[in-house]
């Protein structure tokens, strides 16, 4: 492997590219107060290359990207664009130099037109007002470029997320664009929308535009990127061609130490049936689904976006209304009418959207972790601060939650640690069946690895676990059995050695029928 300290001297290149680097960053440093966010940010990007950047949260990826895109000024280091030294003092400088960034969160104003969204902040004007015709024509050029079918005058809120992303990209890409940075673009996209995005990236690549691609999904890195730069603790670790390396090797470089396989071992033995669902239908579109999960096993719930995975779980725990079907928990009839009753019966559900409906972002870690057990923290309707603290502390260690103080705000934690607090919240509720919706969405590889091991350990200790995930490798790596959903119905159940990505895709798409 080529592992030089200076990425400039790295001769490994994607076959399709032979030019001199379009972007070079060397020894970039950035501090926030006493915290060093970036100590040695190095990057070399070639024209027409798709260059992945991976690293755990806190590795400095976002800081480096913010410096490259002009929204942060570096404390030290050099930045070269196309052979000239660059000094950005604003995002506009970066755009003028040909660097655009597509942010993770789509920032679309839903009630104004596609064209106005694209030119937000730089609407072409003349005396007397906006030059709508010029703007629409320009917008149409981008839409055609990315083969989007919508019109520049459509209301932006009516577009699919994929089409909205075109707006974001159009904003980032100026006419003489040379580098486009994608910051975790697929975390909110469906499989089809992701495919469209990758087609778009391939299109940029074919025009000689370089793409910097940040993702926590290693499968995407290996499928779509030419080279990958690994960062750790604010510094450059290595840059390597994806075809010369392996996921395990990349993760090892990110984490900084050997890891034993990406996924934990499967269940050695499973016990009695913990939750049995028969003929379940719901108002949200689930139709006649039956399944069971046993103690000691992890049941994966897979399917395309909109196939009814989450809806199935939400109907089981009465977040959505059930219209038909019966359920049993450890042999006893289980018919909750509210989520509260489901939790009391020991069937807990962890929501997929951590920020929107999982966390109390203004409250402390302690408050977040005891949210489900307020009634058990003292007698006569009172909450004992001491007991709350003791309860929460019970899980800080075993879950390896990195925090300074339980009283600190939950929003100070990284996504991975926030996710662990959510898991702790449900473990405190002493579940008998734990349903986790996207337990590792948007968190870094190291934290993912820990959560996978944690879930397996919980299953081994006798908990029945259901994991819903849109990431196929996760479902395959983690599940003992996989229930695949399609259009609200159970498309099939895969057991043991049958569990692989192609079988799941075949069932999910209906190709197996």
């Amino acid at each position, binding site marked *: 492997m080529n592992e030089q300290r200076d990425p400039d001297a790295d001769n490994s290149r994607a076959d399709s590219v032979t030019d001199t680097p379009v972007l070079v960053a060397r020894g970039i440093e950035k501090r*926030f*107060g*006493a*915290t*060093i*966010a970036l100590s040695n940010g190095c990057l070399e990007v070639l024209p027409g290359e798709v260059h992945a950047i991976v690293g*755990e*949260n*806190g*590795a400095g990826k976002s800081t480096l990207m913010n410096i490259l895109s002009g929204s942060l000024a570096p404390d030290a280091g050099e930045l070269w664009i196309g052979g000239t030294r660059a000094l950005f003092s604003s995002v506009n400088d970066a755009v003028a130099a040909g660097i655009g960034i597509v942010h993770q969160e789509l920032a679309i104003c839903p009630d104004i037109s596609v064209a106005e969204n694209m030119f937000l902040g730089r609407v072409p004007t003349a005396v007397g007002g906006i030059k709508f015709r010029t703007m629409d024509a320009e917008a149409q050029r981008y839409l055609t470029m990315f083969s989007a079918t919508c019109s520049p005058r459509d209301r932006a809120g009516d577009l699919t997320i994929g089409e909205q992303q075109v707006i974001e990209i159009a904003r980032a890409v100026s006419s003489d664009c040379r580098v486009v940075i994608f910051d975790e673009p697929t975390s909110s996209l469906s499989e089809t929308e992701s495919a469209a995005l990758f087609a778009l990236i391939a299109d940029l690549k074919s025009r000689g535009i370089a793409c910097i691609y940040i993702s926590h999904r290693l499968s995407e890195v290996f499928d779509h990127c030419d080279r990958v730069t690994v960062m*750790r*603790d*604010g510094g450059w670790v290595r840059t390597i061609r994806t075809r010369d390396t392996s996921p395990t090797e990349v993760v090892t470089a990110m*984490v900084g*130490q050997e890891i034993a396989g990406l996924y934990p071992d499967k269940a050695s033995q499973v016990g009695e049936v913990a939750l049995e669902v028969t003929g379940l239908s719901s108002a949200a579109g689930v139709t006649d689904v039956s399944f069971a999960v046993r103690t000691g096993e992890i049941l994966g719930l897979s399917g395309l976006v909109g196939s009814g995975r989450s809806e199935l779980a939400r109907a089981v725990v009465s*977040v959505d209304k059930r219209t038909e079907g019966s359920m049993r928990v450890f042999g006893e009839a289980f018919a909750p009418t*509210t*989520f*509260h009753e*489901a*939790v*009391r019966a020991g069937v*807990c*559900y962890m*929501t997929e959207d951590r920020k*929107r*409906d*999982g*966390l*109390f*972002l*203004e*409250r402390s870690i302690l*408050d977040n972790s005891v*949210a*489900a057990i*307020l*009634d058990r*923290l003292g007698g006569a*309707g*009172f*909450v004992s601060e001491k007991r709350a603290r003791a309860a929460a*502390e019970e899980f*800080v*260690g075993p879950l*390896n*939650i*990195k*925090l*300074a103080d339980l009283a*600190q705000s939950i929003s*100070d*934690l*990284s*996504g991975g640690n926030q996710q662990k607090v959510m898991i702790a919240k449900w473990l405190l*509720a002493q579940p008998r069946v734990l349903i986790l919706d996207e337990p590792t969405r948007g968190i870094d590889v*190291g*934290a993912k*690895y*820990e959560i996978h091991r944690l879930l397996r350990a919980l299953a081994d200790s006798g908990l029945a676990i259901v994991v819903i995930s849109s990431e196929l490798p996760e479902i395959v790596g983690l599940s003992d059995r996989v229930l695949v959903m399609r259009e609200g119905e159970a498309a099939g159940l895969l057991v043991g050695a049958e569990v692989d990505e192609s079988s799941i895709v075949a069932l999910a798409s209906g190709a197996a029928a």
Partner: protein
Amino acid sequence: MTNSTPAGSPPRHTTSVKSHLQRLLRMNEAVVFLVVVAVFIALSLLSPHFLTEQNMRTLAIGLAAEGIIVVGMTLALASGGFDLSVGSVMGLAAIITASFYTGGVDIWIAALLGLLVGAVVGSINGWLISRVKINPFITTLGMMTVARGLIYVITDGSSIPVSSAPEAFRALGTGAVFGIPIIVIVFAVIAIAGDLLMRRSAFARKVLYIGSNAKAAALSGIRVPVVQFNVYLIVGVLAAIAGILSLARFGTATPSMGAGAEMRVISAAIIGGASITGGAGTVLGSVLGLLLLSLISNALVLLNVSVNWQSAISGAILIVAVAIDTVSKRRPRRRIAPPHPSSTPPTASSEPAQSPLVR
């Protein structure tokens, strides 16, 4: 490794005393308390009539009724809502009590019926907000108008005197125990109980969680509709108590009783640190906020400033208080690393090491 303590900073125990002090000062109550104390001292120096027993008593009695309501309003604000109908409910409870009494019903039973009206109005508010899911602004704005309208329907615009009521009832508003007015004692008991419950009870915790993120609260197994219903029920009952005590105090139920109370009470709670978007607020803070507003009104009287200035000044205080709060919270986002390697909580050693930077 990270060092959040800059070189040359004092030893750790001093820092922790300092940080305690900082934490105390960061509490909204502390700031309002200091302002209240400052105004108090200023007034005692400016006017010889301020620090007299008579003035103190007037101040306390004047504060009591709205003080009872502000306890409930704090809860409503903490839940992410508010109740605009409190002033009207206060008036309606007094009118109902007075008209039952003049209709020949025993005053205590009449008062109980007044309380019941508060509970009914509160329940309707609670039901509409928690189950029908109409937003609190529309619901309680409507209820405010409906209740005030009912007052005029019942009274036809005239006051109902209860001066003939038994002395025991009138004593609720005019009597004193050990020199302390009974109405003030009732307020103090409700405020202290309210403050303790707000800080310690599981119910109030749930209210705060709902105010922070109602969806997350529901998905933590908290019965959001039940809690919300109870909040508005409590607010309604407290407003009715305030109305009945005011009836006992003035000896007459006027159709305009409680008019505008909702705005003063909401302003007071917000000055005291409650948030209009929910998830924050303490009874202590709200009561201090109300005390501040009362001191200002008192000052205008004592300093011979036209009372017409009162509402302008109260409004300005509200805006200044919220502005100070907003600006002081607009600090750069802290990136907290463990303060010192040794103070990192023990973690399972078998897990892979992670970056020391906790983002």
